C-alpha cells in the first residue's frame, strides 16, 4: 500500500470529527477522516440531540464533580449562535429547532438551585426567566402538578443527530475532503515534524503522512492518543435513551429537571424522546452497549410524573450509547503539549458544542485566535500522573451492572 498525504487526518467520524472536517475543508485544507465503523454511529448517533443553552446542572451516574457552570455557560452562549447559522452553512436541513425549553424543580431546594443557575445565566448573557409552578403550567399546560417552579430559556433546542453528522461529512466532501469508513486507526507514529497514521489491515491498509492529527474519537480518545504515546485521562460511560411511538399531542419545548436525570422533547417525526443520563446496563466499547430495564423504568416514572400525558403513550424502543467524560467534567480541546500537530477535542455535551469546536479547532490549527478562549481547556490538565489505586486511562467501566443513579 502506497503512502498518501493529507493536510490533516481526523480520527473518528462522530459529530466532532465531521464538524472539524467540514471547517477545515471549507478553509481549503485536504482532510481525511478515518472512521473505525460506519460514521456517526456511536455517541453522535445515539445522543439525545439537545442543544443545551440554559445551564446543564444535573449529574450523570458516576459523575464525581459538578460542572463549573460559570465557566461553561459562556461557551454554551457561543455554541448557541453557531447553531443559528448552521443549516445555511451546511446547505441542508438538519432539523434544528430553537423552540426553547424549561428546566423544572419539584422541591424548595431545587427551586433555590434554579435561582442560582439563573444568576450564572444572566452573567453569561443567556436570558432565562423564572416561573413558579402555576406560571410554568400556564406556559406549558402539559406539565404535571408536582412541578413547583421552572426556568424558561428560549435558546434551548434540538437538532436531529441522525442528520447533523452526515450533513457535516457531506459538506466536507463537497469541499474536497474524504471520509473513509471501516478504517480503524491502528498506529500513529512521529514522522519528522508530522505524523504517520496507519489504518485498516491487509489489503485495506492505509498509510497517511500528515502534519496534523485531530483525535476526536469520543470514548476512544484516550486509546487513540495512547497510540501516539500520549496518556490522557478520560472516563467513558454509557447512558441510554427511550423513544415512544408518535404522539398526536404536540409539545414543542424541551423539558429538563434540575435535580434528577430527565430530558423530554418531541422530535420532528412525532415521537417523544426521553432521556436524562440514566446508566446503561453495560458499556461495550467493542460493540453495542446494552440498555437497562431499571433505568428505563426509573426514567419513565420520572417523565410521567413531570409530564403526565406521556403515560398514555407506548415505548417504541430504547438504546444505549457511550460518551467520554473528563475527570473535571469540562470539555477538552486543544493541542497536546509536547506533541505538536496532535489535537484533541471531546468531553460531555459535545453535540451542543460541535459547531463551536469545529471552528475552534480550525483556528487553532491555522494558528489564528479561536472564537472563544479555550486555553484553560487544553489536554495538558488530563496528562498528570494518577495514583496507583486509580485505574487511569484504561477506560474502566465505572458502572456496575445494577448501579443506580447517584
Amino acid at each position, binding site marked *: 500500500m502506497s503512502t498518501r498525504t493529507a493536510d490533516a487526518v481526523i480520527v473518528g467520524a462522530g459529530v466532532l470529527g465531521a464538524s472539524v472536517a467540514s471547517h477545515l475543508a471549507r478553509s481549503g485544507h485536504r482532510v481525511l477522516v478515518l472512521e473505525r*465503523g*460506519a*460514521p*456517526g*454511529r456511536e455517541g453522535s*448517533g445515539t445522543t439525545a440531540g439537545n442543544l443545551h443553552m440554559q445551564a446543564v446542572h444535573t449529574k450523570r451516574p458516576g459523575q464525581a464533580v459538578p460542572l463549573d457552570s460559570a465557566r461553561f455557560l459562556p461557551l454554551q452562549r457561543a455554541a448557541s449562535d453557531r447553531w443559528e447559522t448552521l443549516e445555511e452553512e451546511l446547505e441542508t436541513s438538519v432539523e434544528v429547532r430553537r423552540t426553547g425549553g424549561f428546566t423544572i424543580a*419539584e*422541591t424548595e431546594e*431545587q427551586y433555590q438551585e434554579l435561582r442560582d443557575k439563573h444568576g450564572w445565566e444572566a452573567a453569561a448573557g443567556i436570558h432565562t426567566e423564572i416561573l413558579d409552578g402555576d406560571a410554568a403550567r400556564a406556559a406549558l399546560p402539559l406539565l*404535571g402538578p*408536582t412541578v413547583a417552579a421552572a426556568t424558561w430559556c428560549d435558546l434551548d433546542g434540538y437538532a436531529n443527530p*441522525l*442528520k447533523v453528522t*452526515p450533513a457535516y*461529512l*457531506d459538506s466536507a466532501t463537497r469541499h474536497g475532503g474524504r*471520509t473513509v*469508513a*471501516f478504517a480503524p486507526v491502528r498506529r500513529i507514529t512521529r514522522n519528522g515534524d508530522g505524523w504517520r497514521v496507519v489504518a485498516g489491515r491487509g489489503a485495506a491498509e492505509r498509510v497517511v503522512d500528515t502534519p496534523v492529527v485531530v483525535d476526536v474519537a469520543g470514548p476512544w480518545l484516550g486509546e487513540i492518543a495512547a497510540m501516539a504515546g500520549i496518556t490522557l485521562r478520560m472516563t467513558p460511560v454509557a447512558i441510554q435513551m427511550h423513544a*415512544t*411511538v408518535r404522539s398526536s399531542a404536540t409539545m414543542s419545548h424541551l423539558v429538563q429537571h434540575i*435535580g*434528577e436525570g430527565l430530558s423530554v422533547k418531541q422530535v420532528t*417525526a412525532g415521537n417523544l424522546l426521553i432521556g436524562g443520563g*440514566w446508566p446503561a*446496563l453495560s458499556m461495550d466499547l467493542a460493540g*453495542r452497549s446494552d*440498555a*437497562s*430495564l*431499571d*433505568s*428505563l*423504568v*426509573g*426514567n*419513565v*416514572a*420520572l417523565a*410521567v*410524573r413531570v409530564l*403526565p400525558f*406521556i*403515560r*398514555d*403513550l*407506548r*415505548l*417504541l*424502543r*430504547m*438504546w444505549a450509547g457511550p460518551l467520554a467524560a473528563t475527570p473535571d467534567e469540562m470539555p477538552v480541546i486543544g493541542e497536546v503539549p509536547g506533541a505538536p500537530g496532535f489535537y484533541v477535542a471531546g468531553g460531555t455535551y459535545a453535540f451542543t458544542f460541535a459547531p463551536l469546536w469545529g471552528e475552534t479547532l480550525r483556528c487553532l490549527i491555522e494558528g489564528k485566535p479561536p472564537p472563544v478562549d479555550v486555553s484553560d481547556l487544553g489536554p495538558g490538565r488530563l496528562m498528570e500522573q494518577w495514583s496507583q489505586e486509580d485505574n487511569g486511562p484504561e477506560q474502566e467501566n465505572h458502572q456496575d*451492572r*445494577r448501579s*443506580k*443513579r*447517584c
Partner: protein
Amino acid sequence: MTAEHSAATYGEVVERDVVIVGGGPAGLSAAARLASAGLAVTILDEQPELGGQYYRRPAPAVARQWGDHRPEGGRLIAQVRAAGAECRTGHLVWGVEDDGRTLLASDDAEHPVRLRARYLVLATGAFERVFPFPGWQLPGVTTPGFAQHLAASDHTTVGDRVVLAGSGPFLLPVACSLIELGVSVAGIAEAGRPYRPSLRALGTLGHPARLRELASYAARLARARVPIWQETVVLRADGRDRVSSVTLAAAARPARPVRTVEVDALCVGYGFRPQTDLARMLGCQVRVDVASGDAVPVTGAAGRASRADVYVVGEAAGIGGVHAAKARGLAAAHDILTREGRSAVPVSEARRMMSARRRLARFTALTDSLYPGPAALLATLAPALPADTVVCRCEAVRAEEIRTTAAGSADGDLNATKAWTRAGMGPCQGRECGFAVAGLVRSVMPGRGVGDGESRVEIFPSRLPVRPVPLATLLELAGPESQKGDA
C-alpha cells in the same frame, strides 16, 4: 418524592421449572412432554388461543359450522392442559430484566408479569418474508400467511379472484385452502423453478410424507387447473381503491412485463424468517445464515442455545416446517428431562426421534434446494425495485433514499442506513421491511456478500421492547409509589 428515585422493578415473580414462550407446534410439543413428566411448566402466547400458526384455532362459530381443520392441534392443546401446564394466553413477552433472565410479559389487560425459570424454551415461530413492489400498499394486497389465517380461523377469504406470488412450498397449501373456500385462484407466480419439468415430478422423488403432502397439493391444483408460472415475479399491482390487477415479469428480467391478471386480491410472500428477538435479547449467540441473510440462533442438537438455560426450538431456530418444529420441541424437552435426571425415554425411542429429526433435516434441505434462497431472491428483486417504491411503510421511506444513503455516507452499513433514512424505525421495528432494506443495501455494494466484515451485520439489532408496550405497564413495574405520583 426524593431526588434519589430508585428504579428497581417491582412486583411478584412467577417462578417455574420451565417457561415456554410460544404456543405453536414446537412450544406445545415441549410443554406436553415436560408437564407430563411432572415439571412446573408455564407456556405463554400473545394470541388469545394456543396453537401458533399451524394449529391456529378456528373461531367457535367457524368450528361449529365447519369443524376443526386441524383436530390434532386441538388434541395437543388438550394434552398440554391435562398435563397441568399453566397456559397463559394473551401474554406478550416483550423484554428481559437487567439480571438477564427474568422475562417480562404483559397480560391481556397489559399489566406486567415477571417470570423466571430454570429453563427457558423459546418457541416464538417465524414471521413472513415480504418484499415490496409498486402497489403493495393497495387494499387487497396481503400475504399468503394472512390469507391462510383468515381461511383457517374465520373461514373467510381475502378475495374472490386471487393470485398468489412469491416463492416457497407454502404457496401451494394456501392456494388449496382458498380453492376449498370457493375462491378462484387465477395462478401462482413462483420466483424459482422448483417444479420441473412439471409439478408431478415432485411425487416421483419418492420422499417421505411431507413431500407426498406437497405433491398432493400440487395434484389438487392441477385438477383445479391453477396455472403455476415458474421463474415469475410480481412487477406491480394496480387499482384505484383496491387492487384490480397484477402485472408479472420473468424473474430473469424483472422490469419487463409479461402478463397482467385481473384480481381482487393478491398474496405475496417469500417464505418465513425466524423470530429471534427474545433469543438475542437474552444474549444467545446468533449467526447470519449465508443462504437466507437471516439471523439464526446458534444451537446444539437439542436446541440448546449458547446459554445453557435457554433452548430455541421450532421455526425460531430456523425454518423447517411443522414436523421439524414439533420434533425440535420434543428434543428440547427430552434434553431438559435428561438434565433433570427424569428421563423416562427408552434408548430406542430416543434413537427413533433422532433419526426422524435427521430425516426432517434432510427433507428441509431438499425442499430448500428446490426454491431460490432468499439471498438469491434479493439479488434478483432488489436491483429491479423502482426508485419511488415505498419500502418502509411505517416511516414512508422509498427505495431510492435507501440506495443513495447506503451507497453514500453509510458505506454499505445496514444499521447506518437505517439510522439515516429511518427505514425500520417505526412500530414494526423493521420486521416487515428488514429483508428488503438489507437487500437494497447489499445491491448497491457489489462484491460484498452476506455477513462480510465484522461490523456489517446484515440484521437489525434486537431491542427491548419486542413490540411497543404502554408506558403505563412500565409504571406498574416502577412500583406503587410512581402510580400514586400522577394520580
